[in-house]
């Protein structure tokens, strides 16, 4: 394989119902860094139906070239036509690196495209760097449930493909003075590519999810004082888009439902963020949550054992602290929307 043909960084732009997904903009930010380091171009691919008008926005976020496939058969995400279209763009423009978000769509599309192109793909990366010597892309991802970090390279095949976990890369600053070219690509899509018939797209109002699957848990202990105290916890949960859970004490008191119990006799959770509100931190509780990525403990007793496992501890009245955090979050959001 002649590698010298393959140049530049290409980001697959995920849009849903005409809305660019945040992860795609994050990848433009990362892609820009990588492209600079390689001294090459940052391009992106936008697939969909009636979506060409979104291209400008991608230029404002750093893309020098936007390849657009605007076709009715791409009106909803479907594996086959999207795979065909993206593969066609890659084959034509031969990028050195292809990035996509590790969303449900990205994780479906990525492996299909890499298999069709016969190249390597690393899923769910959290860090991307360029090896200064070989110029290979160093793709780092957590493996074995996050217990080891694996750095993977794809030295013999091109493009080097990676799906990237949403939220780990930084969105670039939107700059309307940037310019770039927008090119329409014909992907030769035909009705026979539609091997799946889409009957209905259902958007379900997000229900309470199982606390074992939640990425953010706001957990109540006896320190919340009363059943009414759960309202405070819920306000923080809704602000952080998290779920409410509790220690055995509050479950026994009937303040929180039994299926929300964290601990040895409840559920073992490992969310990205665990906020322990008024939980003393008996070992029976800690055993169920100590593997959480980041633990924030709020307790009025500075000697509470929960502080031994907490990454961040606040000594103070749960209600005052949580209400203050909620106020700050609201203010932050108001400023940053």
């Amino acid at each position: 394989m002649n590698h010298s043909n393959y140049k530049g960084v290409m980001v697959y732009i995920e849009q849903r119902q005409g809305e660019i997904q945040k992860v795609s903009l994050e990848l433009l930010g990362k892609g820009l860094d990588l492209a600079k380091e390689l001294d090459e171009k940052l391009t992106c691919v936008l697939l969909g139906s009636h979506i060409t008008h979104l291209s400008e926005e991608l230029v404002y976020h750093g893309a020098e070239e936007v390849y657009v496939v605007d076709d009715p058969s791409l009106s909803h995400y479907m594996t086959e036509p999207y795979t065909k279209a993206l593969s066609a763009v890659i084959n034509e423009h031969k990028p050195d690196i292809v990035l996509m978000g590790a969303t449900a769509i990205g994780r479906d599309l990525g492996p299909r495209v890499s298999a069709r192109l016969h190249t390597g793909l690393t899923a769910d990366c959290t860090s991307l760097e360029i090896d200064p010597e070989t110029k290979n892309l160093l793709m780092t991802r957590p493996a074995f449930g996050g217990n080891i970090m694996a750095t993977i390279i794809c030295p013999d095949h091109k493009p080097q493909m990676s799906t990237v976990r949403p939220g780990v890369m930084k969105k670039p600053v939107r700059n309307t003075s940037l310019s770039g070219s927008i090119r329409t690509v014909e992907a030769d899509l035909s009705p026979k590519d539609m091997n799946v018939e889409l009957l209905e797209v259902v958007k379900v109002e997000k229900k309470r999810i199982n606390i074992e699957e939640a990425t953010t848990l706001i957990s109540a202990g006896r320190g919340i004082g009363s059943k009414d105290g759960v309202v405070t916890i819920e306000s923080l949960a809704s602000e952080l888009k998290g779920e409410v859970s509790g220690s055995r004490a509050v479950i026994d008191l009937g303040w929180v439902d039994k299926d929300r119990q964290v601990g040895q006799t409840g559920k073992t959770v490992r969310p990205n963020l665990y906020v322990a509100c008024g939980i003393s931190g008996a070992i029976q509780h800690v055993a169920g949550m100590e593997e959480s990525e980041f633990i924030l403990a709020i307790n009025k007793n500075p000697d509470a054992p929960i502080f031994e496992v907490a990454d961040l501890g606040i000594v103070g009245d749960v209600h005052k602290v949580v209400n203050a955090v909620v106020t700050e979050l609201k203010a932050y959001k108001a400023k940053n929307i």
Partner: protein
Amino acid sequence: MEFGLSKEHQMLRDMLRQFSNSEVQPLAKEVDELERFPIETLPKMAEIGLMGIPFPKMYGGAGGDNLGYAMAVEELSRSCATTGVVLSAHVSLGASPIYEFGTEQQKQKYLVPLAKGQQLGAFGLTEANAGTDASAQQTTAVLDGDHYVINGSKIFITNAEYADTYIVMAMTDKTKGTRGISAFIVEKGTPGFTFGPKEKKLGIRGSATSELIFENVRVPKENLLAKEGHGFKIAMKTLDGGRIGIASQALGIAQGALDATLSYTKERKQFNRPISAFQNTQFMLADMATQVETSRLLVYRAAWLKDMGLPYAKEAAMAKLFASEAAMSVTTKAVQLHGGYGYTREYDVERMMRDAKITEIYEGTSEVQRMVISAAYLK
């Protein structure tokens, strides 16, 4: 050397056995099945003086001794281990610390109604993070004017919610470690003092076991037992005596299982013979009986030493260790000799087997007893 019981102790035993058979045995199955506290038995126990059996009459007690107390727990437990532990926790853990360490005023106010059986006692030492390592107390007591303010919680407390008077350990000075622990008398109903739900247990299911929760509980200064910093010593001394009670409970459970098995194996026939005619059965019964008798000698000796005012901590630990492990072994064999019937709740032995296990755990696990015993020899 004298191994016989005195005339008084023999009379006491007859009375206890009669009481156990007529008042305790009939309730045992229901108490277990419904996980129900045997509340109606308490006034009857008070009436015959059991609730204050080892305490002097001047404090409302029966003027008996620790041997008599051990026999009382044993006989109750023969029928119903739940009833046995209610008495044991009340006398050894609730009332004894007040008797041993209380001021005259505290004795009059708290010990007298306990010993008379007008009130029930309990003892709060264990915490979620302080079980065998009892020194790791996190409950705190802070002096504020003429009150101590207690915050924290205690778990697995026997008689909780049913008791009126609680001995509670709390840290008054964390920097001093075990010497920073103090003991307090806390009354039920003090604002901020509440209970968690009843634990669901394998055995002794009628015994009430709950969490004690203290949220800014204000206890008068005069309810401090002995001095600040004496709590750990009080707790350890109290547990020494409490171990005689649990050893007696284990002994009673084992005796009850042996009794049931003796009569069952004489009645049950297989291969045209009562199963007691098989040598396997006979040998198992011999082992069981020997374990029961060994337990009894150890338990009675520990009680006797205490009555004599001699050191008894090591002997109490040995009695508790041996009797509880014997109870586990004897009840397991009892279920086996009952065959399939022994596994059903129709017969008493499966309950006894479930009840026996806790005796190896509470008031110091078997491992703690071994620590106490070996420390006494290796010092």
